[in-house]
């Protein structure tokens, strides 16, 4: 009896692990972006090596790319010379080594973790890596997907393999169903609150149970995306009809006979009944409420109606409160908000934009609040515009941008100012994450949009109506 993780792992073992050496694990898809790869390509060049499988490698630009729409073939200027140099290096490396690149002019460009799934390249049973910790996103399809460092990017380029010790497994059982106004983002924030930011260290999480089964693919990606915020090596969800319906007909998904063969293989992936996990944790889905962070890591999170905890004598907690400008014991509802950010690899897909637009329709962004809506990819942008979501955002007073990581990581000049409070659909509320001195509250697109309308932290259920 094997778990899904075990099946995928064993199918990719080129050489099994021994006491002396880790397993040599084959990688089916290597995603590449501008920030974590120049030093890896430099090693290839120094050692006169070539990428082994450029055909299994796909590059896009997302972290430091501008999101302002500027007419003309070259768009908006990059934030700095160094960012321009990184972009130019990626172009040069991909051209030299024959790696497909979605550059600034390509309509398939977008955040690396949005692009793979929407093309149908992210598939059940694959091993997928990228020099980015949110690679865990792709696990939503029943793939084993994890973030790697730049040296490992070099290893995969050169050999299409990685040296890996087999991680432990942890089942995350989420029963019941999510209530109205409660989203996949709230589910994963609730889990991180329960097990902590180091709670998943050394483990691959497999999300199971009725609350997971009823989620759509985009919501499943939100859940798996933030597995790393619990410290987990990866997160995964067994493929099912929802997965297959999402993939069928995508440009890079198998077709015809190959599709039928793929389905047979994919159906063999879910873990055997009774397969043992090293650990199990349980959440009751129907009890989860809209969640929001109040501190400086994603584990400092609570139901939106709760009061900020009091931890007397804890210097680290006091420092976080002073950074955030909050007093322990006070409610977070009605705290003033300066910036609202909808986007990122966590919540930058079409369903996220629909969800924010649903709340915004017929409302205005409160005076003094900057609201930035950044689609996860150019394809998401196009699809959103086709159904008029851009008009909803623009009419409400929000800024509608080109795709990219944008304000999630603040590398491209889209920053939150020092001392400003941002309700953000992104994944990290670390000190300075959205800009030096920025104060980030992580929440769902619904909560973010509701907070934009009132200019204060707002429970979206109060605006959703009945």
């Amino acid at each position: 009896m094997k778990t899904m993780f075990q099946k995928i792992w064993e199918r990719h073992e080129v050489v099994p692990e021994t006491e002396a050496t880790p397993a040599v694990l084959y990688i089916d898809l290597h995603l590449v972006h501008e920030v974590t790869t120049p030093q890896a390509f430099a090693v290839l060049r120094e050692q006169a090596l070539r990428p082994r499988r450029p055909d299994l490698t796909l590059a896009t630009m997302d972290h430091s790319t501008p999101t302002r729409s500027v007419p003309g073939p070259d768009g908006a200027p990059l934030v700095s010379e160094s960012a321009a140099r990184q972009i130019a290096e990626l172009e040069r490396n991909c051209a030299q080594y024959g790696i497909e690149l979605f550059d600034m002019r390509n309509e398939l460009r977008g955040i690396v973790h949005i692009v793979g799934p929407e093309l149908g390249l992210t598939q059940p049973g694959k091993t997928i890596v990228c020099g980015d910790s949110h690679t865990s996103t792709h696990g939503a399809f029943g793939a084993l997907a994890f973030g790697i460092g730049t040296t490992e990017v070099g290893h995969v380029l050169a050999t299409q393999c990685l040296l890996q010790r087999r991680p432990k497994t942890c089942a995350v059982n989420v029963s019941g169903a999510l209530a109205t106004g409660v989203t996949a983002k709230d589910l994963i924030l609730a889990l991180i609150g329960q097990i902590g930011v180091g709670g998943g260290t050394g483990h691959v999480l497999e999300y199971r149970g009725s609350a997971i089964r009823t989620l759509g693919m985009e919501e499943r990606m939100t859940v798996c995306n933030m597995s790393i915020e619990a410290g987990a090596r990866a997160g995964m969800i067994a493929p099912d009809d929802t997965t297959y319906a999402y993939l069928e007909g995508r440009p890079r998904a198998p077709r015809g006979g190959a599709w039928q063969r793929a389905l047979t293989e994919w159906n063999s992936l879910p873990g055997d009944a009774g397969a043992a996990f090293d650990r199990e944790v349980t959440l009751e889905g129907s009890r989860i409420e809209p969640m929001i962070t109040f501190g400086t890591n994603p584990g400092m999170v609570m139901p939106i109606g709760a009061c900020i905890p009091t931890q007397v004598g804890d210097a680290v907690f006091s420092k976080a409160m002073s950074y955030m400008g909050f007093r322990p014991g006070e409610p977070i509802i009605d705290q003033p908000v300066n910036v609202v950010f909808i986007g990122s690899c966590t919540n930058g897909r079409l369903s996220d934009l629909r969800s924010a637009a649903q709340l915004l329709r017929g409302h205005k962004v409160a005076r003094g609040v900057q609201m930035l809506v950044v689609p996860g990819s150019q394809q998401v942008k196009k699809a959103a515009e086709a159904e008029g979501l851009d008009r909803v955002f623009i009419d409400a007073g929000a800024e509608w941008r080109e795709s990219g990581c944008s304000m999630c990581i603040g590398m491209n000049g889209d920053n939150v100012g020092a001392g400003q409070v941002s309700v953000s659909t992104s994944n990290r509320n670390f000190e300075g994450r959205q800009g030096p001195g920025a104060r980030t509250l992580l929440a769902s697109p619904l909560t973010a949009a509701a907070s934009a309308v009132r200019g204060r932290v707002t429970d979206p259920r109060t605006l959703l109506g009945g």
Partner: protein
Amino acid sequence: MQPISQFVSRTVVLPAPNIDTDQIIPARFLRTTVRSGLGRELFHDWRYDSTGAPRPEFALNQPAAQDCAILVAGNNFGCGSSREHAPWALLDYGFRAVISTAIADIFTSNALKNGLLPIVVDAASAQWLLDNPGAEVRVDLERGVVVLPQGREARFQIENFARYCLLNGVDELGYLRSQEAAIARHESRGA
């Protein structure tokens, strides 16, 4: 890579738990195409104020912290992103080891590939180190121990192959490339 076996250094202590990679090296310094020179920006926003002046109260800015090669930190050090710039910055600054009760997975992997030792010790030893900044300790990779001043030893484990590479100054890529035949076999199976 230079072989590592043992070294002696005083410690610098950052007691906070969950020190994330955005604190170690903020994202705006990742717009580089080389590995070197990041030590200047290590812990940038904790180390310098908004005018760029060093904050005197920050541990790394104190005279006693100069030339220390061992960082002692709170639980779950290095959580967050996969940026290898974090160990690059620590090494470039002069650190050769980080000691904690837990260190994040990707940070650990990145550190080992660059010769920065991610050392996880028992809670009591870690607490002693947190309580005694500036203590002179010896890190012995061969024996897998940190020797504290009174001669007390705290054991640590480094993954066997990474340990072999560190002790012998061997690069892991060479080993991976030597698996060519097995890799080709795997590819022909899948095709």
